[in-house]
């Protein structure tokens, strides 16, 4: 039995990241997908065909917005114009929820277009809490923040990531998107135990799960969103399903993107994991 999140946000079932490669297929075939997630910024600065396509898709499918440029961990002032555009897009597509990553993307007015890591310490936590609260007040809804893949550890870090996330959730009252591939990638890069990470995560704040492939360089892993999900990540997903009873699940595939059918089949593997483990059919939202 699924345990609810504290906002009673719906279990949307099994979704896919909306990518331009699949626009034509989706419009023509109207595939039986539970929901789509968009990269918010891809639709915030365009009024052409991408927006027209999104309008069509949003009429038929639930849409979740997942951004990459909120830079919520930056020490620059919050970009309120960006927030206004984000809020307007959420209204236009009737987004079920919206979020970004626990990261920063730039400082001194710059955007490096990367999900850059924070030191996990009291100063960063207080900074994040203040900003998350301010943004949530403006958006009028909880932010759904994702654990990002990270490739370095700062010497100034004083607490493990899962503790930082748990305290951020508690003090800012935000929601989480738990990316199990990112847990695997970061665990490999930093040498922590992913099971221990999962033991301490605040599941009542988790409203969504991400699945993806990555690139294993032997010495480290990079979150490339390429290829199918590896078995070790499926095992982490199964563990999260045991702990939560099920959450809206989404597959990201961003490099060497295959046909729509292949990506859809990959996310539907999650349905089987969930059914086998929870012993009840997945909700259709």
């Amino acid at each position: 039995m699924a345990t609810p999140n504290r906002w009673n946000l719906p279990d949307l079932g099994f979704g896919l990241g909306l990518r331009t490669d699949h626009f034509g297929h989706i419009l023509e075939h109207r595939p039986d997908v539970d929901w789509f997630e968009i990269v918010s910024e891809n639709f915030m600065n365009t009024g052409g065909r991408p927006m027209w396509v999104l309008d069509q898709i949003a009429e038929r499918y639930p849409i979740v917005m997942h951004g990459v440029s909120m830079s919520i961990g930056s020490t620059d002032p919050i970009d309120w114009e960006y927030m206004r555009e984000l809020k307007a897009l959420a209204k236009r597509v009737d987004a079920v929820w919206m979020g970004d990553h626990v990261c920063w993307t730039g400082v001194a007015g710059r955007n490096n277009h990367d999900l850059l890591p924070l030191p996990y310490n009291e100063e960063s936590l207080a900074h994040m809490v203040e900003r998350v609260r301010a943004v949530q007040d403006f958006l009028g809804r909880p932010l759904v923040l994702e654990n990002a893949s990270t490739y370095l550890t700062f010497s100034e870090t004083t607490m493990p990531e899962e503790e930082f996330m748990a305290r951020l959730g508690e003090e800012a009252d935000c929601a989480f998107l738990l990316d199990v591939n990112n847990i695997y990638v970061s665990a490999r890069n930093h040498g922590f135990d992913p099971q221990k990470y999962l033991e301490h995560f605040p599941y009542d704040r988790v409203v969504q799960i991400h699945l993806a492939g990555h690139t294993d360089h032997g010495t480290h892993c990079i979150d490339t969103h390429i290829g199918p999900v590896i078995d070790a990540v499926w095992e982490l997903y199964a563990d999260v399903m045991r702990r939560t009873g099920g959450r809206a699940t989404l597959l990201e595939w961003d490099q060497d993107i295959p046909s729509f059918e292949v990506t859809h089949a990959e996310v539907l593997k999650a349905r089987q994991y969930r059914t086998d483990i929870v012993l009840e059919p997945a909700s259709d939202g």
Partner: protein
Amino acid sequence: MAERLERLERWVQEVITHPDGVGAGAASRPAEEALATTVESVVLPSATLSASERIGIYAGMYYLRLIEVLDGDFPGLKAVLGSDAFLALLHEYVAAHPSRHYSLNMLGAQLAAYVREERAELPHAAFLAELAELERALQEAFDAPAAEPLSTDELLAIPADRWAATHLVTSPSLRLFEFEHPINAWYVAFKEGDAGPVPEPVPSWTAVYRRKFRVWRADLTHARFELLSAIHDGATLGDALERAAATPGTDPDELAASVGAWFQDWAGDGLFVAVDP
């Protein structure tokens, strides 16, 4: 204010975006002003990678990611320069003009100005800058806000006695260029797989616009360009026609005989979206 975090973020940004790599970034003045320290004292090593290798992952991805975005947006520029010189130019451009916008769509917005104003030593710099302008305009037209065009009938419905004082609002996708080179002619040949050498300077006038999700390029005569530019800039139709009539070599009678057909063409292309009387 998270003062220590602000210093750390500035330091990281300087280190990972330095065009000569992590070592040069950490030794740079801006990095030292942020944190007077070493990479090893800021970043911990892992079991398999040193501190420099770990932060180097971010540095390596920075230029790769941004250059990949621009690489696809300026195919003509790449064809003229050759792949190696083009990628080197993009690397230098990104270093000189880092992104300041949430959208990667804006990354190439200053490339033409960069070539014209900061890379004038490049062979054919003036041609390259104009070509970059055209290729950037194609991106901008693709992403421009949508607007329902006026029909020819709606244009014809403007009363004759109000015509001279009327303002027409042009499509948000419309971009107009007065080039020193035959840029669009060269680009047409390039798209057909027959790009010739860099042409000699010959003035040309080009419109770029989007119609039904497709981006178009159209060469204009000088007089057409002046008329359309004046309308685009907000002039009344009467003033715009005066500006077109003042174009060197323009016969007023020929202009008067042609202008109706021009407006019909432009209305058919969806270049006008509103009447602002």
